[in-house]
């Protein structure tokens, strides 16, 4: 095995090895081609469309530059109130999901034995396979005035919240919960037990350890989970139409504009609202390293 023969044998490998940039280019070409061509071009085209018009005569999109759609979206009171409502629901859903996810993720990662841990991961993942629609309809059943919820709480003087924003929040929190639990659980797995031991060794009570050690380390994972619940809620239009009573969310406005009115430019303009919100959100959390924890 002289050096020369092996050099010849590995000529392609050796060439690649010597050219780190080439290797990088080879790695990145296909994904960037895909994401850039398919996604970014599509997104850019959509955003440009927001500045075009629809010919009310033919219904075709016409390349005629206008700010009308943007102005409509920014000034119409319906967009303002729906945006506020949607962001409110998204924040509420996110907070609820995080609060629900933290104890269960902590229990899974740090208390449960390996067998129980495995079973719990399965238990958390399983609901993902029941269709979104089936689950949403199930909540419609549960929350109906004579449904399971009312049936359970009536003896103690409660009543079903009925269909409306509370029902929407409940349903969406339910739908996205696994997506929040999983990153938080993974994040907790990465927190070495020795750190927790160190904290309690230094005299911290468990709660104090959680607050001073676990949560700060977990912050990126929590943010990662929140991106799921926040963004999925921001774009949802189906759950709210099933359990949301007469309310509509941003997703409905976008959907109606494109699906019913065939007004893609206006839909694109309306889409700018959630895009802007998400971008601000991503920019805000970027520093936390959360984007590496999705």
């Amino acid at each position: 095995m002289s050096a020369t023969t092996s050099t010849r044998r590995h000529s392609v490998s050796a060439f690649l090895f010597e050219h780190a940039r080439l290797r990088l280019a080879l790695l990145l070409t296909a994904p960037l081609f895909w994401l850039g061509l398919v996604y970014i071009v599509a997104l850019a085209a959509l955003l440009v469309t927001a500045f075009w018009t629809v010919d009310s005569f033919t219904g075709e999109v016409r390349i005629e530059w206008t700010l009308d759609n943007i102005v409509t979206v920014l000034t119409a009171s319906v967009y303002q109130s729906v945006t506020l409502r949607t962001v409110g629901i998204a924040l509420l859903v996110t907070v609820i999901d995080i609060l629900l996810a933290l104890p269960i993720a902590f229990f899974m990662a740090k208390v449960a034995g390996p067998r129980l841990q495995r079973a719990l991961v399965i238990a958390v993942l399983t609901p993902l396979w029941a269709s979104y629609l089936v689950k949403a309809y199930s909540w419609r059943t549960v929350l109906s005035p004579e449904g399971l919820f009312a049936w359970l709480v009536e003896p103690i003087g409660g009543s079903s919240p009925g269909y409306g924003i509370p029902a929407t929040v409940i349903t969406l929190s339910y739908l996205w919960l696994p997506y929040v639990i999983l990153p938080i659980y993974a994040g907790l797995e990465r927190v070495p037990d020795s750190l927790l031991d160190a904290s309690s060794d230094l005299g911290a009570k468990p709660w104090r350890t959680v607050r001073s050690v676990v949560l700060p380390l977990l912050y990126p994972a929590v943010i990662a989970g929140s991106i799921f619940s926040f963004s999925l809620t921001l774009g949802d239009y189906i759950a709210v139409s099933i359990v949301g009573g007469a309310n509509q969310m941003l997703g409905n406005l976008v959907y109606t504009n494109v699906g019913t009115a065939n007004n893609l430019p206006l839909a694109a303009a309306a889409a700018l609202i959630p895009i802007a919100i998400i971008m601000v959100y991503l920019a805000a959390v970027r520093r936390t390293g959360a984007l590496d924890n999705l």
Partner: protein
Amino acid sequence: MRLSRLSKGVLGALTAAVLAIVYIPLLVVVLNSFSTSQTFAWPPPGFTLEWWARAARSQGALDAIGTSVIVALAATAVSLVLGTLISLALQRYEFFGRSTVNLLVILPIALPGIITGIALNNFFRTIAGVQLSLLTLIVAHATFCIVTVFNNVLARLRRTGTRLEEASADLGAGVWTTFRLVTFPQLRSALLAGGLLAFALSFDEIIVTTFTAGTGVQTLPIWILNNVFRPNQAPVVNVVAVVLILVSIIPIAIAQKLAGPESGTPRASAGRAARSR
């Protein structure tokens, strides 16, 4: 951490409570699949096996499941390849625009599905000039599935570092051989986890699907959407959901078992340390 019995008990109780909340609606689905009420009235006025019998005969449901499986498998395959490539690039190289690429991967999942949906719909029809089909649907699904593979692989790469690959190269293995014999086996369980999540994500996707599926393409969620609104079909949908839940436990359990032994030991980013030396 030395937790008191009490705090362990409280945590266990909270976990049980959350799981109860998670499973009660699913239990309702199971009950409704046997309910004589076609509209899921509560409590069920009576029980019947009719829906299960009907579901068993429903060719449409089977076809839809088949389509969904094909779409999810294809989208998963694409995202496995692309996700792995991109995570290798981001984890093993420093380059200008690295964080932009990172953002690019995350964007399709971070932006609401309806935006991805109408953007791709518009792209396919007007820019690419292609008819919506099974293929456009797969392309759309793969686009937002990349991130799950990406994240799992990235985390694994970070954990394993570059030592083993160096050892392999040191022992005479070329770039491809090293990937085949060392890198890939190290990534296997991460790929499995990421792939499973990608599959699940694609399998239950409805919003992007609505906008990017060809007319003849009926995935399971679309089938459900079409059928949940027919009074005489809605309970059949519950049956299908119940079957899916039960069947899904198998692959998840297998994946868990496979991913189990390696995923337990967190090792702080050795790769990063090596890179920044």
